[in-house]
């Protein structure tokens, strides 16, 4: 098996773990942790594909953009969590619709 196929097989396992976390939990923090794991897998695929095609410079430039977007998504999600916790006293994702204006 080539290095690329082995890398992507392990990345697929990592992404499976992230999706399982997002499916199994109702806590907003664990949803965000699952999202983080999936996005780590996505970043690894970008860099691995860049290394495969000898194009790692553009892959890095793309990845820096991905990291910035990831930080903003996590900050917005955690802000929603704190707001939901102040309003309802819980971190349950089913109570998020109580925030509607």
């Amino acid at each position, binding site marked *: *098996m*080539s290095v*690329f*196929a082995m890398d*992507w*097989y*392990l990345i*697929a*396992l*990592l992404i*499976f*773990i*992230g999706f*399982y*976390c997002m499916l*199994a*939990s*109702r*806590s907003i*923090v*664990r949803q*965000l*942790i699952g999202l*983080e*794991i999936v996005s*780590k897998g996505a*970043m690894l695929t970008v*860099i691995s594909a*860049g*290394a*495969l*095609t*000898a*194009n*790692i*410079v*553009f*892959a*890095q*430039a793309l*990845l*820096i*953009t991905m*990291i*910035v977007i*990831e*930080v*903003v998504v*996590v*900050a*917005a999600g*955690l*802000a*929603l*969590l*704190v707001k939901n*916790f102040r309003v309802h*006293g*819980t*971190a349950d994702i089913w109570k998020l619709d109580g925030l509607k204006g």
Partner: protein
Amino acid sequence: MIYHNLLFVLAIVFAMWAVMARRLLTSAVMLALLSVCVSLIFFNLGAPWAGVFELSVCAGLITVLFIGAVSLIRHEDEAHPENRARFYALPLAAAIFAIAGWYYLPPFFEELAAWRRMASGSPAIGLALWDLRRPDLLGQILMLAAGVFVIKSVFPRRTEK
């Protein structure tokens, strides 16, 4: 090669630990260790800039954000814990996925790798980042401004009496 695969296996172990940990604080710390593993993989694949960003932003900033949020809701989470049975089933589910995927995924990825088209010489990182992808930088600044705006609108200043 062994070091490379070992880093991937460590990343998977830390990810499983982050999902299965009973305390949310442990989950946040394991997520940081996962980020460290991913950044070491980036260094190993020859992407030092991405590795530095991953190490400073994902392992540093996001962990601080997570720990801050978790410390706010920790009492509630410990008073009413979630049903843990589904998390304890994760190693079984991951093992089933790994065994089933071993027969189907690598041949597919080999085929995917056969379609590749090699790049014809890549520029220096400074040229790629500051000259060729300059609109990206504007997009990143706008994205950060959008994040600040989201937090501002989620926590408005109270004006009603």
